[in-house]
């Protein structure tokens, strides 16, 4: 099918461009791009739940932070090497999302938003409460010497870029495959009309539950990767702001599109970057842009592209 060919070409193209950019742009932008790619993993995870399943969570910072602390604390307190610590981060965020999902999915709509928000706040306060280990808001540094996998120093410029690229490529391709699978199609059906999906014989609750776990685990991977590549973990990442950010990125980039999370994350990152060069009131510029986008491209950037002719955009 030509649609599939176009989709695959797009996905490969995006990854090739990201890899090539390292050799093209300056070190400063390389650094930015590494950060964007790691955060885009978070947005990809969020988009799976919000964009494809239609579940608006306001508590994803909990999953991000679970991955971050899972890695950071196991390295700093238990002396784990980077790779096992990364696994701890992923498994921990999967566990947290399994518990939160199990309880939060008893609700839906606004109640779901509030319940997830409350869980995330509880997580944030827990991180502060155990400040002795987490060092609270101040956070802690993960020593450069321990940020190595298979002898590769992940704090080095090029290594960090390509590690970030690897994490992004992994989650991007995984979600692109997932949303095209029968499972992903059913998530979209649930988003569109839950009752109809149920009356087609789908176990709606189980599909949503698995979506929460997958979404939370990818978010946790992002948190763990962030701590690993940038050497820092702190409670700010568990705060409500970090629950709102992925929602914002996904809305800007285009919810329910595979490429949207990357576009949205990059767009928001550079918007803040450029605006703060021009004025100290950079959040005003950001706010205004968001208002304009919401007014004129409510489907986000890639959603708007899809509406204007690129109907095949996955």
């Amino acid at each position: 099918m030509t649609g599939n060919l176009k989709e695959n070409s797009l996905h490969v193209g995006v990854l090739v461009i990201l890899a090539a950019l390292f050799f093209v742009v300056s070190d400063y932008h390389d650094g930015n791009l590494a950060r964007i790619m790691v955060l885009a993993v978070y947005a990809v995870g969020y988009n799976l739940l919000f964009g494809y399943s239609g579940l608006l969570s306001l508590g994803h910072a909990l999953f991000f932070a679970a991955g971050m602390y899972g890695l950071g604390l196991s390295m700093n307190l238990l002396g784990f090497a980077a790779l096992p610590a990364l696994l701890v981060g992923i498994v921990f965020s999967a566990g947290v999302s399994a518990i939160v999902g199990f309880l939060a999915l008893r609700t839906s709509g606004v109640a779901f938003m509030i319940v997830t928000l409350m869980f995330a706040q509880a997580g944030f306060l827990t991180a502060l409460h155990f400040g002795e280990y987490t060092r609270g808001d101040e956070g802690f540094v993960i020593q450069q010497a321990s940020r190595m996998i298979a002898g590769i120093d992940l704090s080095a410029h090029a290594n960090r870029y390509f590690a970030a690229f690897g994490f992004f490529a992994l989650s991007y391709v995984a979600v692109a495959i997932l949303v095209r699978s029968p499972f992903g199609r059913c998530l979209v059906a649930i988003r569109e009309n839950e009752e109809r999906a149920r009356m087609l014989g789908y176990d709606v609750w189980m599909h949503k539950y698995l979506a929460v776990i997958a979404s939370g685990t990818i978010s946790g991977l992002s948190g763990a990767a962030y701590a690993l590549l940038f050497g820092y973990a702190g409670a700010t990442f568990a705060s409500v702001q970090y629950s709102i950010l992925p929602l914002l990125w996904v809305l800007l980039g285009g919810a329910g599109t595979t490429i949207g999370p990357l576009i949205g994350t990059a767009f928001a990152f550079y918007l803040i970057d450029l605006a703060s060069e021009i004025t100290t009131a950079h959040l005003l510029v950001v706010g205004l842009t968001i208002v304009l986008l919401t007014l004129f491209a409510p489907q986000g950037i890639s959603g708007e592209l899809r509406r204007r002719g690129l109907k095949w955009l996955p």
Partner: protein
Amino acid sequence: MNLLETRCLSRSFGGLKAVDNVDFAVPEGQVRALIGPNGAGKSTFVAAVCGRIRAESGSVHFDGKDISRLPAHRRIEMGMAYTFQITSVFANLTAHENVALGVRRIARLGRRDIDQKVMEVLDRVGLAERSDQSAGDLSYGHQRLLEIAMGLGQMPKLFIMDEPTQGLAEGEIEEFKHLIRQLAGDTTILLIEHNMNVVMETAEQITVLNSGCVLAEGTPEEVRANSDVQAAYLGTG
């Protein structure tokens, strides 16, 4: 053998007994119509059969098993299909995808086989040429037909249709009757219908509900001749 049976099935809303101790049975392969005046409890009854709403008491048996405690999706999995009275298609998905969602659940087929099956079903209801259109862009009548196609795609043992011809044009109703006759024998059909013409021409047996109770049951001729039915529903004629 009866494919579907209910025993003393009841459901009330507030003080109103919408379904009141209904004993009901449909043998395998039969086309059964369920008729009755507005508010007779027809939709509530089938909703309780397929699990959309919980019955308060009584039991539902399907394919020899007691399914009273199963959630809706498990009942559908066992071989029921249900089309909604109020059109409920996935408006933002294509007609093809609407049907494919049903086909994919029942059959672990490759992409190509699913495509083929979907097109076959769409062709059967006359929507093959519109397979790439968003369901929401289809006309109301076509959306009704798509609902039916979504049911057909599941190849159900029992096909429950809640007012399928509502809003269809004359020609489409003829097509629909033709479709039911084709399905008859292979698929057991439970049809809630207001269009008496459709009921009399397609149903082998008719059950008449009134105020939540079974008022009469029989062949179209028997039901037509029943004086209680005439009084309650058909008018004095």
